[in-house]
């Protein structure tokens, strides 16, 4: 149910609108263990989403190689699920049909249709089966997107700032839901985020990336016991460490105690 991903010497160069070459990723090496929850964090332009898209097979590197369970990634496959930032649900399908999409696409809907109900229940959307995406809230829509990705039993789930557009209460709700699903299914989780608290709260390891050129600057092991307390001393000192790394600690001398 979970897979290891290895990334070796990956380069990805874009040409921007002025014709200039932009090094989105340079010399990326990373090994992701099976069943690990890993976060990619960094300011915009650091290439974290690009890296996620490479792992998904939505994009190809100019140099280097990405492997999943020792097999080269050459394109999209259903062994990797993907949750977009927002608005990726099909507006013309009901919640139920959105979640069932993967089963139909793989031609296993007849066999596995009972899974649709299970996943609706799993993400707590019973009673909304017949609703259309525009009729539900942003938090619910992201839960649908997660259920839709998980129904294909992916060995790795790639999450591209899935909670970026949500308010903080909905966000922490969804973070707990995500942890619950991860602990149930044991899927390898790769999360792109710009929220330091989110990364610490969820991850086994945090990969810190920096821009121009996009590269991995540091990898931090999060050894805090689960369930984690957002207000605990260890949590806050880790938060401070990351902030200091980004040289943001001076700008925000006191951690915010909003939750």
């Amino acid at each position, binding site marked *: 149910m979970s897979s290891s991903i290895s990334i070796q010497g990956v380069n990805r160069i874009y040409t921007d609108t002025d014709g200039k070459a932009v090094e989105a990723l340079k010399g990326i090496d990373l090994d992701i263990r099976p069943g690990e929850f890993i976060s990619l964090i960094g300011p915009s332009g650091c290439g974290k989403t690009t890296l996620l898209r490479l792992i998904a097979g939505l994009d190809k590197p100019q140099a280097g190689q990405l492997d999943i369970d020792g097999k080269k990634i050459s394109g999209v496959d259903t062994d990797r699920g*993907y949750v977009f930032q927002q608005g990726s649900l*099909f507006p*013309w399908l009901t919640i139920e049909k959105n979640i069932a999409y993967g089963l139909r*696409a*793989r031609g296993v809907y007849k066999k596995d249709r009972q899974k649709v109900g299970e996943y609706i229940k799993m993400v707590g959307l019973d009673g909304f089966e017949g609703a259309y995406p525009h009729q539900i809230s942003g938090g619910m829509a992201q839960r649908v997107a997660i259920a839709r990705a998980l129904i*294909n039993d992916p060995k790795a789930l790639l999450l591209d700032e899935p909670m970026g557009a949500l308010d903080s209460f909905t966000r922490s709700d969804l973070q707990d839901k995500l942890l619950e699903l991860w602990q149930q299914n044991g899927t390898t989780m790769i999360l792109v985020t710009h929220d330091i608290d989110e990364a610490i709260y969820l991850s086994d390891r945090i990969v810190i990336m920096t821009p121009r050129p996009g590269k991995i600057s540091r990898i931090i092991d999060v050894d805090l016991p689960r369930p984690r307390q957002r207000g605990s001393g260890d949590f806050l000192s880790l938060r401070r460490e990351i902030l200091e790394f980004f040289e943001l600690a001076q700008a925000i001398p006191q951690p915010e105690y909003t939750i």
Partner: protein
Amino acid sequence: MSTQTAVLPAARKKESAAVKDEKKTGRIDKRYILSLILTISGFIIAIGVNIFFPQKAEVVFKEYIITAFGLAFHLNINDAYIFVVAALALGFFISGLIAIKDKDSRRKYSRKAYFRFALGIALAVWDIGGTKLQLFAQPFFPGPAQVIEAYLADNEYIIQNTLYSLRLYAAGFSCGVLLGVGTGILIGWFPKVYYWVFPVLKITGVVPAVAWMPFALTLLPNSFTAAVFLIVICAWFQIAFLTAQGIQSVPKQSYEAARILGSGQADLILHVAIPHAMPDIFTGIGSANAMAFTTLVMSEMLGQPGGLGYYINQSKVWSAYYKVLAAIVIMAVLFSLINHIIGRIQKHTLRWQEGVVKK
């Protein structure tokens, strides 16, 4: 004590159901009764005017023999008019009674009451101006009774022509929709097709379909196929244009999401691109439909052996303007009906948009 506790919840349930029912049906107030009366009073006035207003102008009220259920009736055209107005009044009265059971339909019905009253009054004014006093220029604006005479005099012929129009429209428009959606998908999906076909479509699309009539009439085997061809091209270009636009506006992310979930090319077209383009496709169908009506009537007037346009042309030659009006009334009803059916299909297909798009 135990019986009491058992009874209580049931009673409460019953009560709440009654409250719910009350909320849905609401109170039938006096105003609804008044709007019911208002609705039919216009038509009753129209009947009253027809019966009691003196016939000043000289008009011949012909009698027609109607056979139905093996019996033959003698029907005066003026009586036929009264029957029609009475039938309208009865129809609106019955629909008003049906609307009583539901609050929303009652409100809808009440809102239309003034207009329906005015419709009755308009009939009365038309009757006075066209038949009783003949204030309007004759024979261009005959009274309502004479328009009804057209249906009595030509009934089989009118039905025949209406069916001819309908057949022409159905053949042309359905082919046009199929071709339009098909080409639109190809243009929207394949960049090569877009490059070669889209500019052609853009230029030919602005030319009114009837401009091709000389070619259609000479090159196609008969006039029916010629008219079908004209309707096809007027629907085809418009629908293809909008379908292509709809397909091209699919966000890249939708395709990516579908591909990651296991969709292949065919799935992307059928289950992502086409559903996404549906609102645009219906916009195309709607505007093509209006153009198809125009093309239909024009081509019937200019070279068809039948159809309502042909009937209008033929009646005009004999200065039978009451027949022209009769054909126009049929067109209005028929085309509204077609629009209504298309609207229903659209509403059902795009039900996922409900609440998103402002109506």
